[in-house]
C-alpha cells in the first residue's frame, strides 16, 4: 500500500510542525449569509455566537444584497445550474458574453475574458502572452497568485522594491534589451492597504516602452470616484494594458475573475491560457448575479461613497483611540501590533467581545510587522463601527498599548 503507516507518520509530523510554528489555519463555520452581522460556530462544536464581521472582502456589502440574490435566482431559473463544459466546447452562454462586454465597459478596457477565479487569471495570463525573449518586472509585494503565474511563465523575471519608482526605472533600463517588458503590480496591496503609484508607473512604462499589468482585486468597484479601480483613482483610466480582477470580493463576492485589457492580449488568453482552456465555465447563477452588481454600480456611486465615509470614520476612531495604523485611504485598515503573539491574543479577545478580526504575522507579513487587518464595508452601519471601536479601545487598554509608539510596544512585548 502506497499510503503506509510510515507515509502517514511523515505527514502527521509535517502538520505538527505547522502547529508548532503557530501558523496552523483553522476554519470558522459561519451559519448565516455573509454580512456585517454574522453567526459563527467557533471553536467547532460550540454554540453560535453573533459577531460583527471586520475581516470580509465584502467591501460594498453586496454579497447578500436582495437585488443580487434575486437576479441570481432568475439566472438559475432561466439558464440552469451548471454547464458541464469548458467555455470553448459548449460552456458559453449569452450571459457570459454579456458579462465580458459589461466588465470591459466598467473597467474602460478593450476586451475581457472570464476565468474561474482571479487566481486562475493570474496563473494563466503571463504564460499566454510572454516567451523567453521577454521580461516580467514585479513589485516585491504582489499577491501570491501573481507569483504563481510568473513561475509558470518562461519569461525572465525580476522585481523592484515595493512602490519604489527609482528602483523600477533602474530595472527598466537593465532589461532594455528584452523584446517585451511587463511591469506587474497590485492596484491596492492587500496586507498594507496602500495604493500603487499607477500614474508614475504608466509614465515610466511609456518612457521605457513597457506594458503595465495591474491586479485590481482589492479595488474594483470602489476605488476611484466612480469605483472603476486604481487606474481611475490615479488618473490613468484607459491606459492600463492588462487588468486582472476578481468577482469574489466587492463585486458580489461569489467567485470568478477576469483578464481585461488590450484586445489582442485577451484573445491570446482565449487561445492559450490553460486555466481558461482546462477548467469549467463560470456557473450561470454567478454570472447573473455579477451582471446585477455591475448594473447597481453603474447607476449610482452611493455604495462606494458610503464605504469611503465608513473608512474615514473607522480610521479617525482608531487613531483617536491611540492605535498605530498603516497609512492609507483604502478600506483595508491594518492596526499595527508588531508582535505575533500579541496580534493573536488581541484577535481572540476581540472575538470574545463580538468582533471578528484576524491577526496576521510572519510569513504572511514581514517579521516584526504583525497586525490585526480590519476591512470596512458599505454594509457596516455607524453602530457596527462604534461597537467595534469600543471593543478595540477596551482591549487596547487591557494591553496598555493605546497612545504608545512602535518602540514602546516592542519594548513591552518584543518582536
Amino acid at each position, binding site marked *: 500500500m502506497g499510503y503506509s503507516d510510515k507515509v502517514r507518520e511523515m505527514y502527521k509530523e509535517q502538520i505538527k510542525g505547522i502547529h508548532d510554528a503557530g501558523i496552523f489555519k483553522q476554519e470558522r463555520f459561519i451559519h448565516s449569509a455573509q454580512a456585517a452581522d454574522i453567526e459563527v460556530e467557533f471553536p467547532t462544536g460550540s454554540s453560535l455566537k453573533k459577531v460583527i464581521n471586520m475581516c470580509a472582502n465584502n467591501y460594498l456589502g453586496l454579497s447578500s444584497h436582495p437585488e443580487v440574490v434575486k437576479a441570481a435566482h432568475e439566472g438559475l431559473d432561466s439558464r440552469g445550474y451548471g454547464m458541464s463544459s469548458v467555455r470553448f466546447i459548449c460552456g458559453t452562454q449569452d450571459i457570459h458574453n454579456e458579462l465580458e462586454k459589461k466588465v470591459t465597459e466598467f473597467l474602460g478596457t478593450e476586451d475581457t475574458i472570464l476565468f474561474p477565479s482571479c487566481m486562475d487569471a493570474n496563473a494563466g495570463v503571463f504564460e499566454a502572452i510572454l516567451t523567453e525573449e521577454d521580461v516580467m518586472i514585479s513589485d516585491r509585494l504582489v499577491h501570491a497568485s501573481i507569483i504563481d503565474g510568473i513561475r509558470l511563465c518562461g519569461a525572465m523575471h525580476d*522585481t523592484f522594491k515595493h512602490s519604489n519608482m527609482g528602483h523600477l526605472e533602474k530595472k527598466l533600463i*537593465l532589461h532594455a534589451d528584452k523584446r517585451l517588458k511587463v511591469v506587474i503590480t497590485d492596484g491596492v496591496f492587500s496586507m498594507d492597504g496602500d495604493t500603487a503609484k499607477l500614474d508614475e508607473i504608466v509614465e515610466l512604462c511609456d518612457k521605457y516602452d513597457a506594458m503595465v499589468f495591474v491586479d485590481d482585486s482589492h479595488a474594483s468597484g470602489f476605488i476611484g470616484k466612480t469605483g472603476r479601480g486604481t487606474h481611475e483613482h490615479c488618473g490613468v483610466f484607459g491606459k492600463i494594458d492588462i487588468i486582472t480582477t476578481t468577482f469574489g470580493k466587492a463585486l458580489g463576492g461569489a467567485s470568478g475573475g477576469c483578464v481585461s485589457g488590450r484586445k489582442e492580449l485577451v484573445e491570446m488568453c482565449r487561445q492559450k491560457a490553460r486555466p481558461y482552456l482546462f477548467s469549467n465555465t463560470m456557473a450561470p447563477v454567478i454570472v447573473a448575479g455579477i451582471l446585477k452588481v455591475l448594473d447597481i454600480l453603474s447607476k449610482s456611486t452611493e455604495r462606494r461613497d458610503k464605504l469611503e465615509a465608513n473608512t474615514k470614520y473607522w480610521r479617525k476612531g482608531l487613531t483617536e483611540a491611540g492605535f498605530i495604523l498603516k497609512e492609507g485611504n483604502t478600506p483595508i485598515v491594518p492596526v499595527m501590533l508588531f508582535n505575533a503573539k500579541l496580534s493573536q491574543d488581541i484577535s481572540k479577545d476581540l472575538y470574545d467581545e463580538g468582533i471578528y478580526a484576524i491577526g496576521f504575522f510572519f510569513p504572511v507579513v514581514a517579521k516584526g510587522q504583525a497586525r490585526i487587518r480590519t476591512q470596512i464595508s458599505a454594509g457596516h452601519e455607524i453602530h457596527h463601527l462604534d461597537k467595534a471601536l469600543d471593543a478595540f479601545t477596551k482591549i487596547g487598554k487591557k494591553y496598555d498599548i493605546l497612545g504608545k509608539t512602535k518602540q514602546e510596544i516592542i519594548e513591552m512585548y518584543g518582536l
Partner: protein
Amino acid sequence: MEEMKDEILEYVIDEYIEDEDDEITYDTPLISSGIVDSFSMVSLKRFLEAKYQISIPDEKASPEAFDTVNSIVVLVKEFIG
C-alpha cells in the same frame, strides 16, 4: 579584487536590503539566509554580466555560487579569465 568585492557588496545592499539597519559583509549568506530569494538572483546575474562584460551560464549561476559576496567574486573571476 578588493574593488570588485566592494562594487558587488554595494550593489547587493542597494538592491536587496530594505532595512537600513541591516548590515551585511563579504561573508553574509545571501540566498541561504533568505536576503536574496531565488527569483531575485536574475537581476544579480544580469548586473554581473553587464558590469564585468561576461556571460555566466545558467548552470554555473547556482544558489551556492551566489551565496556570499566572496563566492560571487570567485565566480566572476572564473569568467573574466
